[in-house]
Each structure stands twice: as structure tokens, then as C-alpha cells.
């Protein structure tokens, strides 16, 4: 992938809107291209600044355009089963929850605590804890399902900016897989069970959309995963009353 291919996708990448494969390609390019990395870093810094601006109501014409596009999407997917439509709606919105919480935290910070030191500072006063020394810097521990840290070519701030989106993307992938597994047993469900399942998935999906960015939204994703896991494993229990 060339710079010309990557540049138009940088915003989507920083928003976490790219799927895992495209995101990986962009990330791989950023590791080797200084120019694109600088553009990405600049854009990330700009976005940090934009997040601090007050919210503005969009013009009615924008909503009209969005509604028109939604209508087109609905027509295109009208023939698909309800549970598949619910799944299809996850993909575009799943990873767009890039970091923002830290900005709010910074805004209310009462105290920035910085300790200054260097090679000439006084001798150590605190013995290094064994539990911390045992872990190398930011090495991924356990199954490498989440790409977190360890990327020497991306600047730490760029890496951190994309982390929430990466975690959310993993939740989205997991939910999709569980939904497919629940679908394997779907043929055995009654109509009422199917309706209850579809309705509950839509409800949980709505909770994801309504949740605030960052951890609240991840918590909402986990609720959906919990329900889908129950549906895939303990089908008849999962549908009783729409809960596990």
C-alpha cells in the first residue's frame, strides 16, 4: 500500500473505523513511512484539540442526508434476517470509539505530578519491586489477541490513541463470532425464541450506541458478549425472559 492509499484512510484509522485487516495494513505502513507517520501524529494532536471544543448542533440538512443514507441501507438489507441485520449494523460503528476519556480527565486535573530526575539525581531511595521488575516493558502477556504496545516504530502517543478502538474492535469481533455460533442453533429455536433473541440483541446494541465513549461503551459491549455467549452455550436458558 502506498502513501496515496494510506493518507485518505488515516482519519478512519485514528477513529478506529477500519476493520482489523485494513487497520493492520495502515499500521504496517506507518511503521515504515516517516512522512505518513508525521501526518498521523499531527492529525492525532489536532483531534485532541478538537475534542476540547464545545459541541455544536449540526444543521438540519446534515440530518436529512444521514437519514437518506440510512434509508438506502435499510432497503439494501431488507431481505436479510433480523439478527443478521443487527450484526451488520455493528461493523461500521464498532470501532469508532477512539480515546477521549483522558482529555476529560486532563481537563479536571487538579494536580499534575511530575517528578524530575536524571542520571545526576540522588541515589535511589526505593528498592525496585520484584513483581514489576519481572515484567519487561509493555510486553504483551498471555495470548496475543490484543495488539497493545511493543510497536517500536509508532510513537507512544499514537499507539495509546488507538488503543480503545483496538479493544472495542476485539469486542466487536468476538460478538460477531458468538452471534454466528448462536446462529448455528437457531434452526432449533421456536419463533418466540428467535424474536426474543433478536429483540434483546437490538436492545443491547442500542445500549452500546447510547453509552459514552471509552469504558462505558466497552462495558456495554461486554454485556452483549455475555448474552451472546449464554445464547450460544445455554440456548434455552438464555432466552427465558430475555436474560441468562
Amino acid at each position, binding site marked *: 500500500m502506498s502513501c496515496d492509499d494510506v493518507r485518505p484512510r488515516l482519519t478512519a484509522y485514528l477513529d478506529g473505523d477500519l476493520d482489523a485487516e485494513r487497520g493492520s495494513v495502515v499500521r504496517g505502513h506507518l511503521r515504515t513511512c516517516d512522512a505518513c507517520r508525521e501526518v498521523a501524529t499531527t492529525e492525532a494532536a489536532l483531534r485532541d484539540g478538537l475534542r476540547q471544543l464545545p459541541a455544536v448542533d449540526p444543521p438540519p440538512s446534515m440530518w436529512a442526508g444521514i437519514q437518506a443514507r440510512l434509508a438506502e441501507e435499510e432497503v439494501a438489507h431488507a431481505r436479510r434476517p433480523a439478527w443478521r441485520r443487527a450484526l451488520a449494523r455493528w461493523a461500521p460503528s464498532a470501532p469508532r470509539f477512539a480515546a477521549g476519556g483522558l482529555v476529560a480527565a486532563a481537563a479536571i*486535573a*487538579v494536580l499534575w505530578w511530575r517528578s524530575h530526575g536524571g542520571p545526576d539525581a540522588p541515589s*535511589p531511595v526505593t528498592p525496585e*519491586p520484584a513483581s*514489576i521488575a519481572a515484567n519487561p516493558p509493555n510486553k*504483551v502477556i*498471555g495470548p496475543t489477541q490484543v495488539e497493545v504496545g511493543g510497536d517500536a516504530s509508532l510513537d507512544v502517543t499514537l499507539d*495509546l490513541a488507538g488503543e480503545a478502538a483496538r479493544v472495542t474492535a476485539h469486542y466487536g469481533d468476538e460478538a460477531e463470532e458468538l452471534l454466528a455460533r448462536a446462529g448455528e442453533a437457531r434452526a432449533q429455536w421456536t419463533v418466540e425464541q428467535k424474536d426474543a433473541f433478536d429483540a434483546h440483541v437490538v436492545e443491547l446494541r442500542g445500549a452500546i450506541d447510547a453509552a459514552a465513549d471509552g469504558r462505558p461503551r466497552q462495558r456495554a459491549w461486554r454485556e452483549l*458478549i455475555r448474552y451472546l455467549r449464554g445464547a450460544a452455550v445455554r440456548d434455552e436458558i438464555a432466552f427465558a425472559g430475555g436474560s441468562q
Partner: protein
Amino acid sequence: MLLTCALASLTAVAAADTPTSGLVERARLEIQPGGRAIKQLAIENPLGDVKVEGYDGTSIMIETRKQAPDEEGLERLRVSLVPNPDGTVRITTTADGGKEFKNVGRAHMRIDLIIRAPRDARIEAAVSAGSLEVINMDAGGDLDTASGPISVRNVSGGVSTHSVSGATSLTQVFGSVDAQTISSNVDLDTIGGERLIASASRGKIAGRRVRARHIELTTTDGAITLEGESALRGRIVVASLRGDVDVRLRRQGAVTIRARGAKVNLGSATPFARTQQDGWVHSQLGQLGKTAPAFVELRSRYGMVQFAIIE
């Protein structure tokens, strides 16, 4: 700043040395509560480990260890501390960014936190790939990692853990537990509380010395082993899609069992078992008295199901 002075008295010391891979800087800070006790500690450290240890005091002691390739890198690493009037102390870490800094990969930047906190403070902590350890606390907590391991030991109160791929270990937890992972193991040892809920997709769940009125263990692919006690009128549901299920219980009163799997072995309950047309095997141990029996449900669609009573 006036608010800070009113809420906390600070003593900080800094030190630095030169390890083989860059610079390390350590510092300590103690926060004395103002007029109100510290009730909750909210920690967010995406750059390294967090260890929280409870003690019988009222102040919070924080040790930080920063690591970076050079002096400029150390300057970029920051720890933010926000003591709120409602008794919550918020600690977050981050790294400064901008064109004025040279590019440094995350693997070379690190902040580790060791925190001693009053036992009765609730812990809300999130890390990324670093480890998250909480010990000797009395008000439970909510713990979150992406790929870092979670370790909880000797903690009372409700504990909720979630990780995408970090191994989760809970030992001596007395309170309701909710542990959720996607692709890592969950290890439970000496758990006592009203509810124990654990779930994983591609990880195993292993429970020993578990006693809770409501137990719910679920995996899609990993095996589940459980050794514990059935509480009176309790409910135990152990279910997997593809993993084997192995449950051994000490019985308190009567127990009703229903199980379904690729192969089912109910041990000493086998002589009383009857198999229904839908594949469920039902059995019962003990005399039904005035109190309802404990209910045990075991299932694995593609794995083996084993049950045994520990005499």
C-alpha cells in the same frame, strides 16, 4: 492548587539510575485524606503495571517507576493525581506527544505504580498490557485489562474483572465475583460469596474451594473444572459449548442434578439417574426436606460432562 493543599499533603522524592535499556526514575508520594476518608481509588495506567495493596492506615502511598530511553522520554511520562472531595482519588498516567518530541515506541516507555491504600477503599483500576494486582482490600473493586494479567488475592467485597486476553486469577475473595475474559484462563481459588459468575470464550475456568449460593461458569471452547460446596437452595450452572465439564461437590442437603453432554458421567449419582428423550440426564442425591434442594446443571454440547460428590 489551594484545593490540593487542603486535601492532601504531599511528600515526593525522586531518584534515577541508568539501566541497560534507558533511564529509570522512581518517586514516592503520600496523600493524607482531608476532612473525608478516602473511599475509592480510580486508577488508569495504560503504560505499565499497577499493584494495589491494602493496609490499616488512612493515607495513600504511591511509588512510581518510570522508564524511558532518555531524559526527554522521562519528561514526557506523566502521572496525574486528582483527589476529589467525595473521597475518590483518581490516578492516571499518560505520555506527552507532539512534533517537538522524537518518535519513541511504546515498548520503550513505561510507568509502573505500586500503591498502598486504606483497606476499606474500593479499587477501580484499568491497565493495558501490564499486570494488575490487588491484594488485602476490603471493599472489592472493578478491574479491567486488555492483555495484562489480573491477580486478586485476599479481597472482600464484590469484585468484577474483565480482560480481553489477560489471565485472571482470584484467590481468597469473599464477596460476589464476576470475572469475564475472551481468550484467557480464569483461575478461582477459595471463593465465598453470594454470586460467582465467570465466563470465557477461548480460555479455561478452574475453580477450587468455591462456595457461593449462585454459581454460573460458562465457556465456549475451554474446559471447566469446579471443586466446591453446594449451598442450601443454591444454584450451580456450569456450561460449555465445546469444552469438558468436571464438577466435584461437597453436598449440603439434597442436590438435584441435570446434565447433558457428548458423554455424561454422574459418579455416585448415576444409580439414581434417568435419561430423558431430549438427552438430559436427571438425578437426585439426598432426601428432599422442608428446604428446596440445591440445583446443579451441567452441560457441554460437544464435550464430556463429569460430576462427583466429594465425601
